[in-house]
């Protein structure tokens, strides 16, 4: 490891100052973002940040400190400061921290990459986005066209007082395009692919396979068509959601609900808690028997895949919901003991300078057996909805209301006319309990979410939810706002 000596110095200082446990992370993150809007590159940035952080336990309480300056003197200062902070924490402590044993791990991990983005000339990447965006505005009536790509390179090293030494190089890429059409008293937008683009781990091949050029004109035309489309009706009816919308539904109503820190109240004042309390583990019916959900931090291509998390736990897969029953949580070493659950390596920090916390990893709804073309079968009166445009859920993750960009009516098993402003609402267990068909493996995608927010100070994380198009029965469709 590049920072072996510095890491040991930080750990030695923390222990000498009284820490019973300490870990240290050194990191370098580089973010590249290129965005085109109406024929102009309005966002072209390259950001690099390096530094380190120390986490320490003193008297059963946590302390954390970070700095961008990795000189030896500063390393000592930060390690000592982490201990001082932990000591202050210990003065207000109703109960102490106990870490789940995670073993001693030495290893390296590197994201599998087919095409290194560095081999694609920057000018070529810009032209790609310019062409995509121009094609969006080729659709008559589009007011704003946008196209963008992101590349994140993360190098990090981890060491702790239990002897773990881990080095990782992660590469995450994504791209999207969007059309905005402004009409009289109405604004409609369409984004492709999915709700926020296609974001996965890997190289430039992730951006290539998103196929923005093959879909740009279509989404422009759809945005314009939505201005004159009929309003989505209100009522109780069957709904088929696109895979990307199911991904968001998983993120909000399963992913966050099964973060153990939320369940234990650690996020109570901000992100909230969870209805899925510990007493429900092993017996609570979360969804229909078709609903099986895992957190698989090893899932190929998925956006959160890595070798180890930011407290040194190796990546693995655990069951969260099995055949509709709640069976697990995403946990960290300091929360797992309370619930008696397994670790899967989902504790992550936004970057080297932030405190690691439980984050939604790769939370996958396992594919079903229904070919996606057959999901409309048996629906007499329903709505198909695609690509989210608004999402809201309460702070226990029960009462939700989601809106989508594009809808189509479903009449007697057939796709009907286009509908605008489709929305649906429900309560989490009832909604997942109404799931009666899940698309098969061929329609399943690991959809990345690049902007999940949690914690104070707020940290952004990159999560993933694998999903296929899915059918739900007797859903409340439409919101009162449109009826006023």
């Amino acid at each position, binding site marked *: 490891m590049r920072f072996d000596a510095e890491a040991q110095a930080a750990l030695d200082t923390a222990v000498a100052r009284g820490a019973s446990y300490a870990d240290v992370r050194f990191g370098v993150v580089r973010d590249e973002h290129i965005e085109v809007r109406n024929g*102009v590159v*309005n966002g072209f*940035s*390259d950001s690099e940040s390096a530094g380190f952080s120390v986490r320490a336990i003193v008297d059963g309480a946590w302390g954390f*400190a970070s700095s961008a300056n990795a000189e030896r003197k500063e390393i000592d200062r930060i390690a000592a400061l982490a201990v001082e902070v932990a000591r202050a924490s210990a003065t207000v402590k109703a109960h102490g921290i106990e870490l789940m044993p995670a073993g001693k791990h030495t290893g390296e991990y590197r994201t599998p990459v087919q095409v290194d983005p560095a081999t694609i000339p920057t000018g070529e990447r810009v032209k790609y986005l310019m062409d995509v965006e121009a094609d969006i505005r080729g659709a008559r009536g589009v007011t704003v066209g946008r196209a963008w790509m992101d590349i994140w390179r993360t190098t990090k090293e981890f060491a702790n007082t239990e002897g773990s030494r881990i080095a990782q190089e992660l590469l995450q890429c994504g791209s999207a395009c969007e059309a905005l059409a402004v009409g009289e008293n109405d604004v409609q937008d369409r984004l492709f692919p999915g709700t926020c683009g296609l974001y996965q781990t890997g190289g430039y091949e992730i951006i290539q396979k998103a196929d923005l050029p093959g879909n740009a004109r279509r989404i422009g035309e759809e945005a314009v068509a939505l201005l004159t489309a009929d309003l989505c009706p209100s009522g109780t009816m069957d709904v088929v959601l696109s895979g990307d919308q199911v991904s968001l539904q998983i993120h909000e109503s399963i992913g966050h609900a099964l973060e153990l820190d939320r369940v234990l109240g650690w996020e109570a004042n901000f992100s909230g808690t969870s209805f899925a309390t510990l007493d429900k583990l092993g017996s609570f019916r979360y969804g229909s028997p078709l609903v099986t959900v895992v957190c698989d931090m090893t899932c190929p291509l998925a956006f959160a895949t890595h070798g180890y998390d930011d407290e040194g736990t190796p990546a693995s897969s655990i069951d969260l919901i099995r055949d509709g029953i709640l069976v697990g949580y995403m946990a960290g070493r300091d929360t797992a003991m309370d619930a008696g659950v397994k670790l899967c390596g989902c504790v992550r920090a936004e970057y080297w300078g932030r405190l690691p916390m439980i984050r939604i990893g790769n939370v996958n709804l396992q594919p079903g057996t229904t070919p996606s073309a057959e999901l409309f079968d048996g629906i007499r009166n329903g709505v198909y909805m695609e690509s989210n445009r608004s*999402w*809201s859920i309460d702070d226990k993750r029960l009462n939700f*209301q989601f809106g989508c960009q594009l809808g189509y009516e479903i009449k007697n098993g057939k796709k009907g006319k286009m509908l605008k402003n489709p929305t649906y609402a429900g309560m989490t267990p009832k909604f997942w309990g109404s799931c009666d068909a899940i698309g098969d493996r061929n329609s399943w995608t690991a959809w990345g979410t690049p902007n999940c927010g949690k914690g*104070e100070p707020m940290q952004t994380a990159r999560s993933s939810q694998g999903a296929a198009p899915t059918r739900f029965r007797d859903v409340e469709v439409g919101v009162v706002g*449109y009826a006023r």
Partner: protein
Amino acid sequence: MRADLAAERAAADAVLDAALRDSTADETEAIVMAQDYALSRIMGNTIHENIIERNRTLSVRAVIGKRVGVATSNELDAAGIRTLVKRACEIARLSPADDEFPGLPTSGPATAEMEFAYDEATASTTAAERAAAVAKIVRVMVKHEIDAAGYVSTSAGSVAIANSKGIRQFFRSTDSAINIKAMSADSSGYAEGHARRFADLDANALATTAAQKAVAGRTPGAVDPGEYTVILEPPAVREFLGYLSWTGFGAMPFAEGASFMSGHIGERVMGPNVTIADDFAHPLGDGMPFDFEGVTRRPVTLVEQGIARDVVYDSYYAAKLKHANTGHALPAPNTYGPLPLNVVVSPGQKSAAQLVAETKRGLLVSRTWYIRLVDKLQTIITGMTRDGFFLIEDGRITRGLRNMRFNESIVGALGRCELAKDLVRSENHVVPACRIEGFHFSSGTTF
């Protein structure tokens, strides 16, 4: 403990000078942002997270003809600055020209001195002092036999900006916050405080407010979905105004026709009692006197007595729309356009208590959660109540309620509202409590 003002400014100037000197671009802008941030977070009357973060970054915007590139790094030694500037210039050369780019701004009116924005005691607050404030909160909770979640934070930061056309600005400030969610088994209550000086926050008083709400909300009842008179407390009003700022008060959505203000300047959009401005210098606020291009901020009246007056601009949109630059640029590259960051809502005549006392039947909302736009032009949002939702009967708060989901137009609601007279800072905005008639709740929940 931070360096003294002169030393901190000199250190920032040295980085800015090096960046401008190293650049081969036609025009160059450099921004140094430094921050020390500390936060002690509580759960179950225990400090479960406790952090101190320090970072300093340099961002360089290089302009070659009409081509623009931005690069950012926190490696601020001579070699790091050279590498960063070179990268920004490379990006600019690779960018297609933006024919509407007006060039970097030049210096304008003098910038206000805001020495009061920095408080050394706040900058020097130790982990032990934050823990002492947490301990005060916990003592109140223990007295009421409930738990606290929340945080106590202190920070100190500076922004230094220079460009090759003569702009040079420096500003440093401190900030602090206390956020408390008091929790019983079946209720919760919320209180928050924000101030540039940590000493101005009263942990004990805030904890008492939150605790009393949690106690009063025990054994919550329920009301049916429908239209109600509501009293929104300042944190809820701030969340509404924050959304309105993002979607409607910036020049970019305004120019694209995607703002509720588009095409309506000079027309009535809200009630005649509503005046909304952006004012960086409001004494309760946390504003800075220039924007992220170094341009002096101007106070902007956005809505005056219900009439749409103006939106905010940066140099790009000022040139594009032939309007004065109001000094509201965000850091480049900025894909959101200019935004108002210090919204101030003018106060009404009555106290919040009077608004409650005059309400025959209504609902009091302490805080909202997970607001999202349902319709941009109609400014319809959906969201949930949270941490203190009460029934008002005959002018008195009579019981706690289970939380509910609302769907409501922000602009529509501000057309049938009465504002309270006391202004409070909530996050970065300054707002009063507000009573709204006919506020629509669409569903309930079980807690």
